[in-house]
């Protein structure tokens, strides 16, 4: 089977990922703002040419969107390097049909690379709705490469695109068809003529060589500099450049060519595009009038967020009891089947209790991700960036930091990666450092559990909203402090596109929610399961026979059931204290004691370094062991309420809000920040902040509550 390697290049938000999803079954994440694809994505699709009956393997490399080939942000650099140095057969340039001129600017730069290329006029259905007509045949002639109209969402033109890819892959490379203004063309002709006279031997065409010389391409100069022809060529090129300077009134050759590209793109657009009505634009305009209104915009945004957190709690609570009940039923059954020995305890108290306590929060996670996906795909995120930039800027952040920060409410891993859209190194590091303050989805179960246990269900949504807001505010304050003392330096300019509002398809949103839920459940089934078993083991062994014996004797002598239960509980906690886990907890007790945490809470926090979900499952295992004889209070909630004083619970929430994100996120952080030392800084920074604030929260609430 013949293999064709294709790189997908285009400006941000033109639907490259959607297009791949349309041609294959791959499920890439799709959003409606710049920077969804931050790293190269690769996949294979097979295509059968029905006429010749040959099968092809098309290897697609999806590159991050880039507005131009000037390396401005890190993702643009990824794209540029891949285009210049990558080994591929052809470029598929995806173009947003509704923003033809701006997109053709990149097309022009791509043409200059002299590679084989297919131009995809994507979102053609949307363009038609807006009354935009594009003559793709004429555009093909102007650009010298085939142009295909497609719509990823309607699956239009996918087959034609595959055909063109195969066709172009077998063609000769075509020289760039970009035509410059007369005064530049004149100079190109002059240099070309000189090469012809000398019958100069080169792998490039004379025209290409001439253009590269005029563009002051370092590589070309290096090569030609060592050849005898240089002596004469030098004068000709210098003269040509002087003519260009004279003509344009600037000495910056990059500027001169940038203007040329722009003129070419605009010219091409004028020739092939006509616009009849402005319907869709008015739609965006009308919504924007309200959503980014000077005064109403920000309150509306907060209302949206508040509603989201309300829904997360209120709707999420409905199936929660059911899940909880079914897992405790399963646990009871397991004990009946397996007996009360170590195996029964491992399955019921370790595996089922641990996994069950995490699975309970699946509905909450799904609603939260649904909300975030909705905000992402409609294009609202960019509006919020716009509104908040002024405010963010005061804290040393960039309006664009908003996108990674909000992503951080879902999961820190993609959030760290989304920070790549920030060009300035300082801005990026600063954003990376405070992403952790945006409580991720995995911390949600802890909050839900503690709020439910200590504040009741009545105002749970409000409490949840408050926790997230406090986290965000703490993040901003930290940003300010870090900006003032650590990450000093110049600010990045703020120039950002505001995409049109799009109604996302339900399938698209479902796919995001489904993907996230699946990975959450996968984690529960593997990682959490293993961690629960380990916690169970560490909390059961070594078994102290003496304690057990002496208590059992005492229990037998007692008469009433009540006294028996009380003593049995006492025995359990005595045993726990003697276990491995109890030892670890005791060893670190000095650190957590001033915050009012008992050793069980300390252990939960320590295991939580692996993943935040483990905090809940650890508590589940530890407390289900401690109270298994008391059937009246089976649920973890009431166990917590019984054993933990309110100030400690508040301090615990504060600590969870701030301390280091999970293991996976920490790894990504180290990679994105550019070194392990940054992870160390982050660890010290978050742990110190968490400790100090928890300490304050504990003591202040103790005073207020009068405990």
């Amino acid at each position, binding site marked *: 089977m013949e293999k064709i390697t294709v790189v997908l290049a285009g400006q941000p938000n033109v639907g490259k990922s959607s297009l791949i999803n349309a041609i294959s079954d791959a499920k890439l994440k799709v959003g409606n703002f710049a920077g969804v694809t931050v790293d190269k994505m690769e996949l294979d699709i097979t295509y059968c040419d029905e006429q010749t009956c040959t099968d092809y393997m098309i290897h697609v490399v999806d590159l991050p969107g880039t507005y131009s080939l000037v390396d401005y942000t890190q993702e643009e650099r990824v794209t540029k390097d891949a285009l210049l140095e990558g080994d591929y057969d052809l470029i598929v340039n995806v173009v947003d049909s509704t*923003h033809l001129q701006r997109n053709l600017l990149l097309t022009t730069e791509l043409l200059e690379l002299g590679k084989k290329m297919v131009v995809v006029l994507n979102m053609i259905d949307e363009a038609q709705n807006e009354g935009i007509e594009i003559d793709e045949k004429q555009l093909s002639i102007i650009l010298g490469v085939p142009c295909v109209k497609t719509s990823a969402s309607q699956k239009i033109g996918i087959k034609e695109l595959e055909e063109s890819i195969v066709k172009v892959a077998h063609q000769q490379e075509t020289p760039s068809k970009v035509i410059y203004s007369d005064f530049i063309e004149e100079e190109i002709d002059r240099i070309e003529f000189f090469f012809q006279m000398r019958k100069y031997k080169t792998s490039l065409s004379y025209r290409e060589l001439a253009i590269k010389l005029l563009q002051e391409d370092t590589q070309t100069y290096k090569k030609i500099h060592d050849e005898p022809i240089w002596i004469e060529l030098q004068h000709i090129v210098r003269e040509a450049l002087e003519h260009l300077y004279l003509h344009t009134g600037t000495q910056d050759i*990059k*500027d001169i060519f940038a203007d040329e590209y722009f003129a070419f793109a605009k010219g091409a657009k004028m020739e092939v595009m006509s616009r009849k009505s402005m319907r869709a*634009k008015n739609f965006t305009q009308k919504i*924007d009038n309200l959503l980014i209104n000077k005064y109403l915009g920000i309150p509306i945004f907060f209302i949206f967020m508040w509603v989201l957190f309300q829904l997360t709690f209120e709707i999420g609570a409905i199936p929660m009891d059911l899940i909880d009940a079914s897992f405790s039923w399963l646990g009871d059954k397991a004990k009946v089947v397996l007996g009360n020995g170590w195996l029964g305890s491992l399955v019921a108290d370790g595996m089922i209790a641990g996994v069950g306590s995490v699975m309970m929060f699946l509905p909450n996670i799904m609603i939260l991700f649904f909300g975030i996906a909705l905000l992402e795909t409609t294009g609202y995120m960019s509006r919020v960036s716009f509104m908040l930039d002024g405010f963010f800027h005061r804290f040393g952040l960039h309006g664009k930091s908003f996108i990674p920060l909000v992503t951080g409410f879902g999961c820190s891993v993609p959030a760290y990666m989304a920070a790549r859209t920030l060009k300035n190194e300082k801005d990026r590091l600063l954003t990376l450092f405070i992403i952790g303050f945006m409580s991720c989805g995995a911390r949600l179960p802890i909050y839900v559990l503690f709020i439910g246990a200590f504040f009741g269900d009545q105002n749970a949504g409000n409490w949840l909203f408050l926790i997230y807001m406090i986290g965000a505010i703490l993040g901003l304050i930290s940003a300010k402090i870090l900006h003032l003392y650590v990450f000093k330096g110049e600010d990045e300019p703020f120039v950002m596109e505001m995409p049109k509002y799009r109604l996302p398809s339900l399938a698209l949103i479902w796919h995001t929610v489904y993907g996230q839920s699946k990975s959450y459940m996968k984690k529960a089934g593997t990682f959490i399961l293993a961690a629960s078993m380990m916690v169970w083991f560490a909390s059961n062994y070594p078994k102290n026979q003496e304690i057990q014996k002496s208590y059992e004797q005492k229990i037998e002598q007692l008469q009433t059931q009540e006294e028996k239960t009380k003593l049995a509980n006492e025995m359990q906690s005595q045993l726990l204290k003697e276990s491995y886990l109890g030892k670890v907890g005791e060893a670190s007790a000095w650190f957590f004691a001033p915050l009012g945490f008992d050793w069980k809470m300390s252990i939960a926090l320590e295991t939580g370094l692996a993943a935040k979900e483990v905090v809940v499952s650890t508590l589940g295992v530890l407390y289900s062991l401690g109270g298994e004889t008391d059937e009246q209070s089976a649920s973890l909630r009431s166990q917590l309420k019984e054993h933990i004083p309110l100030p400690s619970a508040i301090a615990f929430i504060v600590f969870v809000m701030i301390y280091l994100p999970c293991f996976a996120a920490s790894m990504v952080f180290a990679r994105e920040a550019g070194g392990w030392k940054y992870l160390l800084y982050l660890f010290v920074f978050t742990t110190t902040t968490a400790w100090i604030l928890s300490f304050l929260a504990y003591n202040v609430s103790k005073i207020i509550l009068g405990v």
Partner: protein
Amino acid sequence: MLLSQLHKGDEAVIVRINADSTLRNRLSSFGVVRGERLKVKGCSLAKKTMEIEIEHTLLALREMEASKIEVSQVGEVS
């Protein structure tokens, strides 16, 4: 006159861009170049950021960047 001095609803033609080459490149990749016509669509609180429309593209700019763009005003919506 500078872009940052315009108000919501104002229309103008870009006369000159006084920025370093990185910012100028970025602006030109969005179509913000000399001779193009733009319209101010809105400003955020305290005019920290402004939204402009150019060639059917909506762009958000900070006041700092807007003050580097010289324009001449051509229309106004009262």
